[in-house]
């Protein structure tokens, strides 16, 4: 564990990314304390530029809602959707990939054709269709994002299982009479986790982007303030009121960038042999 931290911290970008994520998480957790009122409430006159009135540092939007409150509450939605949808996608992907890679043969063929079915449909289009059919709520958004992002996980896990399956320690487990379930869970799966963790950290970033894109198109949960919605609502006044889309945009940029940096750092730390030597 010590070695892991040492290697992780050698990547300065990753440490910076981790710091940003910690701040975003803290802000999201503290949102009800910072802005106890609903971010949908109109609290000042509309089109208030940033830093012009005390207490409204980031200005207000076209309806006089506080942008700072929106960004802070939006962090909750973005993180929640990002994490939960990634979790769901990883569970689906790991289960299908593990079964396909371990059993091979017809099961593998079947599951992989099923995976390709999802991979051939443009993921964003599929997500839009799913949300539109299911009604835009936070649950359906999470489900839609999860359903379009599991196939790469399944492919990755299947590949790892295929190569680990023929390793001698797995054969040894077969010979001592362990059941297939135990072999999958205790012998092979722990050895595939490093790349899955790295991939998951990057998927959280993609999921946040997907959620923002959906909200931008007006397919987000109408009861929840989110970064994508804020940008979408402000796009018509982009030239008069830059700040309305700028601040949520920066929030998305920083969070996604931070997650990517952390993902790279995790990659270096978990796969030390692949790490670039230059650092």
């Amino acid at each position, binding site marked *: 564990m010590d070695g892991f931290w040492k290697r992780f911290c050698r990547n300065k970008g990753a440490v910076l990314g981790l710091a940003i994520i910690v701040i975003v998480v803290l802000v999201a957790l503290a949102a009800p304390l910072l802005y106890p009122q609903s971010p949908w409430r109109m609290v000042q006159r509309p089109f208030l530029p940033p830093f012009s009135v005390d207490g409204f540092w980031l200005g207000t939007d076209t309806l006089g809602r506080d942008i700072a409150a929106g960004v802070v509450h939006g962090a909750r939605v973005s993180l929640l959707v990002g994490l939960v949808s990634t979790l769901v996608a990883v569970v689906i992907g790991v289960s299908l990939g593990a079964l396909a890679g371990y059993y091979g043969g017809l099961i593998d063929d079947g599951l992989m054709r099923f995976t390709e079915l999802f991979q051939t449909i443009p993921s964003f289009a599929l997500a839009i269709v799913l949300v539109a059919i299911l009604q835009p709520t936070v649950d359906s958004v999470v489900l839609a994002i999860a359903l379009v992002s599991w196939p790469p996980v399944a492919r990755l896990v299947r590949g790892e299982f295929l190569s680990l399956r023929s*390793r*001698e*320690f797995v*054969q*040894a*487990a*077969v*010979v*001592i*009479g*362990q*059941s297939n379930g*135990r072999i999958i869970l*205790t*012998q092979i799966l*722990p*050895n595939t986790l490093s790349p899955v963790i790295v991939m998951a950290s990057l998927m959280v970033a993609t999921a946040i982007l997907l959620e923002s894109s959906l909200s931008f198109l007006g397919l987000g949960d109408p009861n929840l303030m989110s970064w994508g919605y804020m940008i979408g609502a402000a796009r018509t006044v982009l030239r008069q009121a830059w700040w309305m889309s700028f601040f949520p945009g920066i929030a998305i940029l920083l969070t996604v960038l931070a997650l990517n940096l952390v993902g790279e750092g995790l990659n270096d730390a978990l796969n030390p042999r692949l790490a670039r030597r230059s650092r």
Partner: protein
Amino acid sequence: MTPGQAPLLDIQGLTVRLPHGAERPHAVEEVSLQLFAGEILCVVGESGSGKSISANTIMGLLPRPWVEPVAGRILFEGRDLLSLSDPELRRMRGRDISMIFQEPMTALNPVMRIGDQLGEVFDAHGGLGRAERRSRVTELLRAVGLPDPETIGQSYPFRLSGGQRQRVMIAMALALSPKVLIADEPTTALDVTTQAQILALVKDLQRERGMGVMFITHDFGVVAEIADRVAVMQLGRVVEQGPADQVLNDPRHDYTRRLIAAVPSADPPPPKNEQSGPVLLRVEGLEKRYVTERGLFAAGRSVRAASAVDITLRRGETLGLVGESGSGKSTVGRCIVRLLDSDGGRILLDEIDLAALRGEALRAARKRVQMVFQDPFASLNPRRRVGRIIAEGPMAHGLPERAALDRAAELLRLVGLDPAAADRFPHEFSGGQRQRIGIARALALEPELIVADEPVSALDVSVQAQVLDLLADLRQRLNLALLFITHDLRVAAQICDRIAVMRRGEIVETGPTAEVYAAPRHDYTRSLLAAVPGRHWQVPGHLQTGSSLQGAST
């Protein structure tokens, strides 16, 4: 070598630094070696002794700046190789000093014809005309004993066997008639009969051309076969060097003595006891075919890995299954432990046909037949503690966790490890220790039959002896039947009561070890035995201490 002659290659006090955090600060320390024209100098040592690093330093192939020479000189024709610039070094490589490597399968470019690859050597050192190049290539291929050199020059590497590829590599190294040839374990990846041919070839070419050959190996049999002089390395230092005859038969240094004592003799000891135990395993007419999948346009190909294999094994007996790679010996072992499904025949363990078992019945029967694997680095799950690894078997068969872990500690003691090892991870152990852990895992289920698939071939010779002793000892104490799969006839001679020789999926000869070795009946057995390197050399009697290095821990 004529005394008084100046050495061709003179290594003086060479020290090569390793990066921080390595096991020791220097890969090679104060190494001084001389190579004379017209001799074969064998550099022997176990893994990590620094023998390959020494060779790579001569060729300027070190991964600088991580590994770098910090002291000493390597003199070749009055020039210090360590002080040469890259272009100078490049001119010298191939023309004056060449090298052949261990792994012939990956050393050739797979998408380039053999002839063109050989021709490149000439291009790199001031080319030749097309016609002349062609004739030189053909001449070289003929010189290394390849049949039909014109055709081989036109072929791609995948058409050639491992031995043929190594011949091509040798041809490439000899293309410009170098004065010094460095061979880094060139026969380790080859079968024993191929190895014998390559060794003979190297020796012939060396004599013909009067080259100095520096031959790096870990195998004392090979040393006995070809060396004029020997240098023994241990942990980066040369501990002993001298004429082959003296080092092999009257070693001075303690380490050399221990190494040579650990070399298994190629002559089997007289049979200890009459085999009278009850028959445990009877394999009858075992068949296994590997079929490549039939494509849309291509017919599937089928290879017979085992055909009509019959084996009988008694309790308390060791049967050696020997043969070259591809002979099907591992396939048979894997069919018996049911890692592979056989295509025909019966595997009777006390009248239960293992081949016919399925599902839960098979899982229950597995505990009676266990396996020890070849590669101690791949056969232990890197993410599980040693105690768990051993306890998993009994737990899978219903023993509670606590009791299984206690049993694991007991087994660790049985295989000569500290029970405290149970809390550590596999990567904290050496190869020999890991193999002991693998054996403990196999024993945890109290099996009646153990299939050991090349259990010592990945280990250094001194560790090999200890693991073999352990296996022999456990077999006797626990009255196990042992099916010992190996390609190494020296090892087989020492541990096996009976031998079965396999070739192309068939058992061609079987009988008591001493009989088979003394009077082989089948031609193939004869050629295998003749190819054992250093057959004429006996480990000197005063060094033999039983067969063991007992007491030392791996």
